[in-house]
Structures are given as structure tokens and as C-alpha cells.
């Protein structure tokens, strides 16, 4: 078992980092937030060329997956660069379609489209099927469904086609949250419920990886800022209070990362769900803590819409509760352990 990335996986991450650095994601985000989707969709297609969208699609449908370790490597970079778009949702949809297999008439067609980057998918999960009962509360929205080619809705044990309704604004301007209008039932029964549970876990895992990347970037920019910004005649990074804030952010992130990696490694084992939830708890808390520290270290400028780090600060808070809050995932961890 590999508890660190191998050379090829590291190279994959570095390649994505390079593409995303060149893509100038802040301007893509600001466009996406205003409903100008094309630059974001172009980036989607570039990422598809590197294979990002094929990671949750099985080889039988033209994909390369499931490759959970590569998936969290990619999502870490998506988070570091705050890439807008329904990436985690598309991964969940791919997992769902894969699990349902021939039950869905157009399943393999969609899967191929996802792998090739032609089909942007989104998903509404009014309850999170992987979580125990009182923690399942979720949102009746499908992220960026107004930019998606395929929108699905899991409604109890029925899978339905869906369409984007009215868009609600999120604290994170890159997260557009349309409600969904339910359409035809595409499949129903226990197989849908079972597939939705795994799909949900994959969405959670992708989001946890993304959160660690978001937090990591916030730490990077805060360290840079603390070295450069002068107050009282010296860089603020000389002050112990600033040092200790930033050290705390690092400690949180350094321990969230192995939980995310470990969850990816346990894909397919009975512990996968428990480990995914543990990863989401730690990643949410670490990224949100990093965001608050980034805000405190930057001061007023971090509180400013036009200054790029605020894009990451807002995303950390929004993803903190997306795909299940830390409390919801703690409930899942405990119920898994108690049931074991």
C-alpha cells in the first residue's frame, strides 16, 4: 500500500498545477460567477485532456478509473487553484452511472462523454445517502446545473433526470446553486440507493481533497504576504502571533492530507465510507481554520472582493458545509465505529 504519492502521481499533480497556474483561474472564477461560463468550460476541456475527468469513469466506458488516489491528487490541485465548476458532482455522477451499468439506457454514452470532457454533469442530493439518518440533511440544489449538460436528481431510491431552476447565490461567488426541476425517472429501486451511497462518498472524498488544496493555497499566500507586508517597521511574519497562527494552519492541513490519502487508499474496503467521512471532517476544519487565519494575517485586504485570496477564503467556508457538515460526518464516523 502506498501512503505517499509515487513519481508518476506526483508528476500528474505538477502537470495540473502548471496548467492551472497558466489558466489564471481568478479571472475564470470571476467570469463564472457572472454567468460567463465559456472560459471555465474551456478549462474543463483542457483538464479532461490530461485525464482528470476520466478518473472516476471505468475503462470499459472509455475512462481510466476508478483511480481514487489520482482523483484526490487532481482535486487537491483543483482546490489549490479554486477552479470553478461541478467537478465533484461530475465525479459523483460518473460513479453513479458506473454502478448502475446497464440499468440506464444512456449510461455508457454519458460516461464516455464525461471521460472525454464533453459532458459536464451535476447532481442534486436532497439527502446525503451515505450518512446516517439525522445527519443526511443536504441541499436541494445542483451546483452549476445551469452550465451542465446532464443534471440528475436522486429522489429516495429513484434516479431522475432534472433541469436547472432558479439560481441562488452562495457566499462563494464561483458556486452557483440552481434549484432543480425533477424530470423523468431513469431508474429506481435498491440498486439506485446503493449506487447513490458510493457516489455520495466519492463526491465527499473529492470535496475533502479540494478543501485541503484550498487551505494549502491560503497558507501559501498568507506566508508570502507575511514575509512582504511591513508593519511597525518590520515584516509581520516576524511577529510571534503571526508565526503561531500560520504554524497552526500548517498543523491542521498536514494531518488532514493523510486522512484524505488514506481514504482514497481504502476505496473498495468496508472502511471506505468511515475514512471518507473522517477525511471530510478534518479537511473542512483545517481549510476553514486556514481561511480564518489567512483573513487575520491579511487584514482588511483579505476581506476584499477584488483581492484574489478572498476567493479561496469564501470557498473554504462554502465547502465546509457542502457535501455534509463536519458534524454530519462525525456522526457517520461514530456510527461506523459503533456498528463495527
Amino acid at each position, binding site marked *: 500500500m502506498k501512503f505517499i504519492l509515487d513519481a508518476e502521481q506526483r508528476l500528474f499533480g505538477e502537470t495540473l498545477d502548471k496548467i492551472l497556474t497558466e489558466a489564471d483561474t481568478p479571472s475564470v472564477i470571476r467570469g463564472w460567477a457572472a454567468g460567463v461560463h465559456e472560459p471555465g468550460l474551456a478549462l474543463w476541456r483542457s483538464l479532461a485532456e490530461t485525464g482528470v475527468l476520466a478518473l472516476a469513469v471505468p475503462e470499459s466506458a472509455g475512462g481510466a478509473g476508478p483511480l481514487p488516489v489520482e482523483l484526490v491528487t487532481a482535486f487537491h490541485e483543483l482546490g489549490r487553484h479554486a477552479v470553478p465548476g461541478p467537478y465533484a458532482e461530475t465525479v459523483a455522477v460518473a460513479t453513479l452511472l458506473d454502478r448502475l451499468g446497464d440499468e440506464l439506457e444512456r449510461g455508457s454514452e454519458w460516461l464516455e462523454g464525461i471521460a472525454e470532457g464533453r459532458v459536464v454533469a451535476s447532481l442534486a442530493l436532497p439527502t446525503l445517502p451515505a450518512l446516517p439518518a*439525522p445527519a443526511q*440533511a*443536504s*441541499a436541494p*440544489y445542483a451546483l452549476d446545473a445551469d452550465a451542465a449538460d446532464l443534471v440528475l436528481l436522486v429522489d429516495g431510491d429513484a434516479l431522475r433526470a432534472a433541469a436547472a431552476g432558479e439560481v*441562488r*447565490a*452562495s*457566499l*462563494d*461567488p464561483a*458556486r452557483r*446553486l440552481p434549484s432543480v426541476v425533477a424530470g423523468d425517472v431513469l431508474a429506481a429501486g435498491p440498486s439506485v440507493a446503493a449506487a447513490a451511497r458510493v457516489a455520495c462518498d466519492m463526491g465527499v472524498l473529492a470535496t475533502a481533497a479540494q478543501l485541503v488544496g484550498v487551505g494549502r493555497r491560503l497558507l501559501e499566500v498568507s506566508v508570502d504576504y507575511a514575509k512582504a507586508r*511591513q*508593519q*511597525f*517597521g518590520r515584516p509581520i511574519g516576524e*511577529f510571534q*502571533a*503571526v508565526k503561531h497562527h500560520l504554524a497552526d494552519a500548517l498543523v491542521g492541513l498536514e494531518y488532514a492530507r493523510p486522512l484524505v490519502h488514506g481514504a482514497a487508499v481504502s476505496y473498495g474496503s468496508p472502511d471506505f465510507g468511515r475514512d471518507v467521512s473522517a477525511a471530510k471532517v478534518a479537511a473542512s476544519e483545517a481549510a476553514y481554520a486556514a481561511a480564518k487565519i489567512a*483573513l*487575520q494575517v491579511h*487584514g*482588511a485586504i*483579505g*476581506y*476584499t*472582493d*477584488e483581492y484574489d485570496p*478572498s476567493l479561496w*477564503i*469564501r470557498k473554504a*467556508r*462554502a465547502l465546509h*458545509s*457542502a457535501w455534509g*457538515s463536519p*458534524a454530519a460526518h462525525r456522526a457517520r464516523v461514530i456510527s461506523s465505529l459503533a456498528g463495527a
Partner: protein
Amino acid sequence: MDLDLSSVEPFRAEVREWLRTHVPAAPLPSLEIEEGFAAHRAWERELYGARLSVVSWPEEYGGRAATPLEWLVFEEEYYAAGAPGRVSQNGINLLAPTLFQHGTPEQLARVLPSMASGEVIWAQAWSEPGAGSDLASLRATATRVDGGWLLNGQKTWSSRAAFADWGFGPFRSDPEAQRHRGLTYLMFPLDAEGITRRPIGRIDGKPAFAELFFDDVFVPDRDVIGEPGAGWKVAMSTTGNERGLTLRSPGRFLAAADRLLDLWRERADPGDTALRDRVADAWIKARAYQLKGYETVSRTDDIGAESSINKIFWSELDVALHETALDLLGPDGELEGDWLEGYVFSLAGPIYAGTNEIQRNVIAERVLGLPRAGR
């Protein structure tokens, strides 16, 4: 001092009744956008009409000479009634106390009534790109000319300045003087010739601040507050106020804690003790802040650096209270709405008016007597 809470009951009843019949049924639009700014200005005028906009001021300027206790009671009732945020607060809480201490009679007579009525809304212009918490490193200049001063340079993070009428702040009038010396405190109309303002969106995009660029802006002598060159002392008298109770009155947090309790009743599983404990803590801390307020207005001595204790307490309480609300809202917590607006507002608390790190230094050195670090 013995506080006679029962003696203020008639005042409380009057305020409560007036608010009951006047507070807008639907919340006004956010005061950080143009439409909301105008609506809040109109509301200030309505308050002024009932002599409720500046209750603690002398009657001649539109107040009621209310005691500090009456002011606390006013604030409790005001926020409990769900009344609108105060678009005039920078003037009332930051400039007016400075004028009462350092202003001329002419300045008081000219500035205060239009501030009380909302006719003139004031923006604080202190920070500069290179000087956030470190006010002594200000660089925008005031140059002596015949009959007044010419302002040059840049200010930033000027709250309300996107839509406000006048601004105030310290400028360096003696370029030779170092740090705390040679600053002059001035007032200026934001539409003066030579001022360019650029609104800045806060973290939710609303233009809650502006950058101000000064290019030979003439300010007559009558708009200097206090002695020229004594701007640091004048500014510090504002700072003391800003960090005390006035910037965030206890009533504000009591009302927010009550709304949080309502949200908890509506939304939470009553068995969810994790959220229950956080709701309880918000209420307990709001209550502590109320009692601390009563204690403060009972004292006759100067609270001095102790105001830093208040600033840390309310700013951290405010963040925690709103985080609890977002967590209660669960997946809806990220959606635009009143709680999110309150959360965004709360996030500024630990940063502005002196970061909480600076406040902790002040407490350690000036309240606890720990040694200052060598440079």
C-alpha cells in the same frame, strides 16, 4: 454608582412603543449598497424626528442628554425591535466623541445637527495602503497654504465612503516629524475638488469601503479638529471610544442571541447538544457583555486600555454566534440572506479598529503590565 434600572423604565417604554410603530416591517436593503444607503439615511431622519438618533447628545444638537444607562437601554430596545443598522454610526461613534473633546463651538454647531439628522453621513478615512494597524506610519500629507491645507496622497478601507458625504482622518502635516508627531486631524467633503473615490467591494462584493485619492484638496482651517500637529492625540481619543462599548453596544448581541435561539428552536434537533451548547454560549456571552456594560457605566474611573478587552470579547462573540447560525442552517448556510450578511459583517470585527493581535498586546502591556518587547 448605583444603577436605578426602574427609573429608566418610562424611557424604555417610550422607545419600545415608538419602535413598535415605526420599525419597517420588511428589512431595508443592505446599507452597503446604494439603494440601501439611501433607505437607511431616510430612517436616520425618522429617528431624528423622534429625537432618538443620538440620545446621549446634549439637547441642542438633537439629543436628549441621556445617561449612559439610558443609552444602554435604548440600544437594547433598538436591536430587540429589529430596527435597521445605523448608517450614521461612523460619525456618531467615531467623529462626534472627538468633536466633543477637541472641536470648537462653531464645529459642534455646524457638524452635529446634520450628522444627527442623517443629512450628512460621515466616513472614517484613517488607513492607508502601507499603514493598517500601524497608524504612526501614515504618509498622506496636509500642506500648509494660505487659510488652510492642501491634502495629497491616498487613504483606503474607508468604511461607508462609497456613498457618504464627508470624511475625517489624520494627515501628515510635518513631513520632517517621525511617526506619532506632526499629524493633523481634518474633515473634508468627499465631493471636494481633487478627491477621487474608488469603491471597494468587501468579501461579499458589496461596496462597503472606498479608496480615496487626494490631489491638492483644499481644506480650510475651520475644518481642522484640535491643534495642527496634534492629530495623534486627537485620533487616540477616537480610538478609546471605538474600542469601548459604543462601537458595539450590548443590545446588538442580546438581540442577535435571541434570534439565534429562535433559529435553534425552528431548525435544530433539540437533542443536538453540540449545537445547543454553542447557542447557550452565545446567549451567555451576550448576557455577560450586557452585564459588563452595566458595570462599565456604573464606574466613574476611566476604563483606559480595558476597552481592548471589550473589543476582543465582542468581536469573537460575534463571529462565533454567526458561525453557529450558519451551522444551524446547514447546507443553506452558504446562501445569501440575513445570517450570511451578519456573518460577513462579523468577520471584519477581529481585524478593524486595531486587530485583535494588537489588542492582546495592549492588554498584556498596559493592563497586565508585561514588558514591551525590544525592537
